[in-house]
């Protein structure tokens, strides 16, 4: 067979069906009525046993949302969501568990299958203390388990579902919720503010270095359900926390909406490291099904010398619309964005970051690696801006794109705005293809097509993988290989 034909056939045979997390859990669920209305919002708020101020906040967001338009500037095209035709709340019927023994065994099994340890005993066995990870598991609209809570609270760290935090720490939540991503920030964030159901809340007290990695594992299970999680992390003065989130969903023919909001606040000298491994169901080869991942993530370096670092490995979702950003408000604060975005099949990714330099001598660094295969489209969109008071602001941006095959696209859209003459912004961008000669060289030494691709791709993303906590880096490396299986001829 001539080489070109073979390549075409290979690309055609890309099989997204290798998505390993596509199974469904059958348990009894309690849902709100379909669609969105004040009643639905009251229902959600009542389910969470929320104080009046929270309900008022939600209703205000809903009012604003009704006047807003879905954004259309991203380089993605999709069938619009019918907001009247989805469920905004779905939770396992059993009441909230006080201990793991009370969790529905089906849910425990689900997390076991996903490789997420919810039993602390299992986590403890054979793992060095510094390698332990506390997990908050969110299943559709509610948190089903949070591990290591007791041990964390000894250090003064608060790590709990946000619905609990609203009841137990209303002052902290009131002070910070919506302070980074305002209620009216954008269409999806405003929707989230109205209907958010659960997510994680983290507070690290002054001077505390969080004794273990914190992580949240999001699972969408129920059909026709949107997931609207809300995460709020506050690192008080001089504290440090590393947080990781992971996401999966069952295979479905229809699209599901995931519209999350994540807010990070770093006070003086504090540091937050936020890592994401996003592996929502990407849809099938023809672009049927998959998650719409419309997410607003923003960190506020509110204090002097604070630092926020975003690291993301994005391999899933049919459509990704996501720009984890940093507001560099405190003098000498630093923002970082490390991203690997892999698209295959019919996936569309429009992702990047915003680095808003407000304080003096603020620095930021952006390293973005986009890998496109199949018939996918992968866009980096980034904004670096310096306010007129941001004397001495500096940014370094590096965007590299790698194309696999000849039916995919890579696009880089950098915006740079400087209102301060002393700001120094550097931008580098490259686009390359895995060359046939490189592939042949690797194969001549004994590597299969897949192994050669994985090796070359891993070399391409190495700078970013190094930013992930080690055990997740290994996981992410595997995930990238799986996402690209069958993509090279």
């Amino acid at each position, binding site marked *: 067979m001539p080489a070109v034909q073979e390549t075409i056939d290979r690309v055609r045979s890309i099989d997204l069906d290798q998505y390993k997390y596509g199974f469904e859990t059958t348990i009894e669920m309690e849902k709100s009525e379909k669609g969105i209305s004040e009643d639905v919002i009251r229902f959600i708020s009542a389910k969470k046993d929320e104080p009046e101020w929270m309900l008022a906040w939600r209703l205000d967001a809903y009012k604003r949302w009704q006047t807003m338009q879905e954004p259309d500037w991203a380089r993605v095209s999709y069938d619009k969501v019918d907001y009247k035709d989805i469920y905004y709340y779905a939770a396992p019927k059993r009441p909230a568990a006080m201990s793991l023994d009370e969790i529905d065994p089906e849910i425990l099994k689900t997390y076991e299958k996903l490789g997420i340890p919810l039993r602390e005993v299992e986590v403890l066995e054979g793992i060095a203390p510094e390698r332990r990870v506390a997990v908050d598991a969110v299943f559709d609209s509610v948190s089903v388990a949070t591990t290591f809570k007791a041990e964390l609270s000894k250090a003064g760290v608060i790590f709990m579902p946000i619905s609990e935090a609203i009841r137990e720490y209303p002052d902290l939540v009131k002070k910070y919720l919506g302070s980074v991503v305002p209620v009216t920030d954008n269409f999806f964030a405003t929707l989230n503010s109205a209907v958010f159901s659960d997510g994680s809340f983290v507070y690290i007290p002054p001077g505390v270095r969080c004794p273990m990695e914190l992580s949240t594992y999001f699972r969408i299970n129920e059909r026709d359900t949107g997931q609207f999680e809300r995460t709020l992390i506050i690192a008080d003065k001089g504290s440090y926390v590393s947080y990781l989130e992971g996401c999966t969903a069952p295979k479905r023919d229809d699209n599901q909406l995931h519209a999350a909001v994540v807010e990070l606040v770093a006070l003086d000298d504090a540091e937050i490291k936020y890592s994401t491994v996003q592996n929502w169901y990407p849809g099938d080869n023809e672009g049927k099904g998959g998650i719409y991942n419309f997410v607003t993530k923003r960190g506020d370096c509110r204090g002097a010398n604070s630092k926020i670092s975003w690291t993301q490995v994005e391999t899933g979702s049919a459509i990704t619309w996501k720009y984890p950003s940093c507001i560099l408000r405190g003098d000498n604060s630093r923002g970082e964005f490390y991203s690997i975005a892999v698209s295959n099949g019919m996936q569309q990714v429009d992702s990047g970051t915003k680095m808003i330099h407000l304080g003096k001598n603020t620095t930021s660094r952006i390293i973005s690696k986009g890998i496109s295969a199949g018939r996918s489209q992968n866009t980096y969109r980034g904004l670096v801006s310096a306010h007129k008071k941001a004397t001495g602001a500096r940014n370094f941006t590096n965007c590299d794109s790698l194309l696999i095959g000849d039916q995919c696209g890579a696009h880089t859209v950098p915006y740079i705005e400087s209102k301060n003459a002393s700001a120094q912004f550097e931008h580098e961008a490259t686009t390359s293809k895995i*060359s046939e000669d*490189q592939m042949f060289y690797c*194969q*001549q030494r*004994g590597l299969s097509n897949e192994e050669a691709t994985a090796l*070359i791709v891993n*070399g391409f993303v*190495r700078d970013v993988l190094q930013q992930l906590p080690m055990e997740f880096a290994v996981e992410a490396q595997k995930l990238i290989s799986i996402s690209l299986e069958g993509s090279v001829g």
Partner: protein
Amino acid sequence: MIEIKNLTVAIEDKQILNGLNLTVNDGEVAAIMGPNGSGKSTLSYVIAGKEDYEVLDGEILLDGVNILEMSPDERAASGVFLAFQYPLEIPGVGTMTFLKATLNAQRRARGEGELSTPDFIRKVNAAAEKLEINKEMLKRALNVGFSGGEKKRMEILQMALLEPKFCVLDETDSGLDIDALRIVSGGVNALRAQGRSFLVITHYQRLLDYIVPDVVHVMSQGQIVKSGDKDLAKALEASGYAEYRTGEAA
């Protein structure tokens, strides 16, 4: 033992190899010399299995098995090694990572167990020392920023680690100074053994002073047109390729 029978190959409708016949015996070092455009590099790529070449006729038998049916990595696992004229750079992939991945891929393909990390490191260090490859070079990304001589030494290091049955050296001497030539040739000579054959492709007799061949073949217009012992190479050096160019277009 390698037997090439009636090998006829075209690229983009242009026939490059015209019914080539060649046998390289066990433990033999065969040199192929010939003018530019005679098809030497095509031969090396077709042996290794590069796409783009259309095999119209013939077979390449390695120990009686036709390797033309195999993918490049299958050929590698059954013992074919090509030292590239222009070794490729693999950015971001550490040399040790690459060496380990390839060695273990071949071992797996042959049903052998993977090498343990300490055993692997010992093996690499021993081979690297002979080729005067320092540890610093092994830490860098494969071939990235390597000089021409370093790249060629890295090819021979890989050959030493993978222990192939049939080694094709495609103009390994090109771009080498005398010192590098001595080191590279020394590395090749150290690998000469019963059960391993070499096909050394070169323009110049110079390399054959260091890697002394058992047989010399002259290639022209996609065929072997003359064979002899090492003195044939010396004669060619004196007379040039003029008599083999007859009928060539340019």
